């Protein structure tokens, strides 16, 4: 299988980037997309050229590191997957594949396809945790939680912070990510004591980081590898209004 990669190359955060073209032969349909990039990098090493910098860790769809924009879609042509779950069989022999880093003012490019997503960490630092004494683990059934609440919390806890929601949003809004983190803890009894502070502080940080606002295009929920629904953003808005005006 032979494809033409058109890949964003950028030396450093302050450098000007550009799309470079690479003809790559010897790929197979069974290869994952990241393996195809590995293959290309091996060819670049043999030619004594700089390899393409891209992020990955688990390669099994759970770590959220491997986000890149492929042929106009976050994580490639399929809905609700990570880049590492994309395989070359999704492309045809002779295809041109354009690979770009996430684009958002709050996600500056570090090198090539790697962006700095620490803005997400700073949002998390504002309240995506519960204050509890650590030590011996408490009895799991001490706090009973209804199945519906547990499932709902788990659906949003599934967020791996890959940044596809920001990348695909025309406003680079981090609303889906922030909503997932807030709704996860605020819907559980353990999260209740700090619920108001959590929603106010985290949404405030989201704004301070320079992310745009949510227009409900719905693009984020289609690209989210965990399929987190945008209804969560409406729920975050409700929780925020309640915390701001009623408590």
């Amino acid at each position, binding site marked *: 299988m032979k494809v033409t990669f*058109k890949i*964003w190359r950028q030396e450093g955060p302050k450098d000007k980037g550009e*799309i470079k073209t690479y003809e790559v032969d010897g790929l197979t349909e069974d290869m994952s997309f990241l393996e195809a990039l590995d293959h290309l990098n091996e060819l670049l090493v043999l030619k004594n050229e700089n390899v393409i910098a891209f992020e990955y860790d688990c390669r099994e769809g759970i770590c959220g590191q491997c986000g890149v*924009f492929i*042929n*106009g*879609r976050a994580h490639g*042509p399929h*809905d609700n997957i990570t880049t590492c779950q994309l395989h070359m069989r999704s492309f045809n022999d002779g295809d041109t594949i*354009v690979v*770009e880093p996430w*684009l*958002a*003012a*709050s996600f500056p490019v570090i090198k090539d396809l790697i962006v700095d997503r620490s803005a997400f960490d700073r949002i998390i630092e504002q309240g995506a945790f519960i204050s509890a004494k650590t030590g011996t683990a408490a009895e799991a059934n001490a706090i009973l939680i209804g199945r519906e609440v547990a499932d709902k919390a788990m659906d949003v806890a599934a967020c791996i912070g890959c940044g596809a929601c920001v990348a*695909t*949003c*025309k*406003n*680079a*809004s981090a609303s889906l990510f922030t909503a997932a983190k807030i709704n996860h803890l605020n819907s559980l009894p353990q999260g209740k004591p700090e619920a108001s502070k959590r929603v106010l502080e985290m*949404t405030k940080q989201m*704004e301070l980081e*320079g*992310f*745009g*606002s*949510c*227009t*409900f*295009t*719905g*693009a984020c929920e*289609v*690209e989210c590898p965990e399929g987190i629904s*945008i*209804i*969560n*953003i*409406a*729920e975050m*808005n*409700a*929780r*925020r*209004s*309640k915390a701001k005006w009623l408590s």
Partner: protein
Amino acid sequence: MFLKKSIIALTGLFLCLFLIVHLSANCILLLPETIARDLYNSYSTTLRESTIIKVIAYVLYLSIILHVFYALLITLKNRKAKPQKYVINKSNENSSWTSQNMGLIGVIILLFIIVHLANFWARIKLGIGEEVGLDAMGNKDVYEVTHTLFQNIYFVIFYTLISIPLALHLHHGLKSAFKTLGFYHKKGLTILAKIALFYAIVMGFGFGIIPFIVYFK
């Protein structure tokens, strides 16, 4: 950001309500001319003389101004959040064209509103331009103003074509306004989506067809 979005949502919902009243009144134009003229003119006179309607009219002007102003502010901020565009972006595969272009559609509607106000509001309420005559009952002959305007095929086509972006804007706007304001009931949102579609079709079709009917009457 949240307050600005809420203002856009609230003013938008108020404008949605206004359009229902506006279209209902426009339906008078579909009646036979003998009845329509008197009814339409006396209706508009009643509106102009009512104190409550005067207050609502100011709320309406304010709503349009705030809706546009905050949409502009938010758009500028959003542009700053996403300064660079992708070489290829297949946004049509994950979201509707309308949802991606609410600003553009809004600008088209705003241009229409300016023309529309110049056609009617400026002449009838401000007395700018050609003077509006009186009908047999002594009311300002607003029916005649409408009738004359829609004898011009270009205005008919303009008013009809504008109903398309209007319907698109209303469809997405109505759905997302509720979500912006924090309505997150899953089943409720499914019903809301259907209501928004129905509302947008009725508004688009209603406002779009009336100029044509008046033209051929």
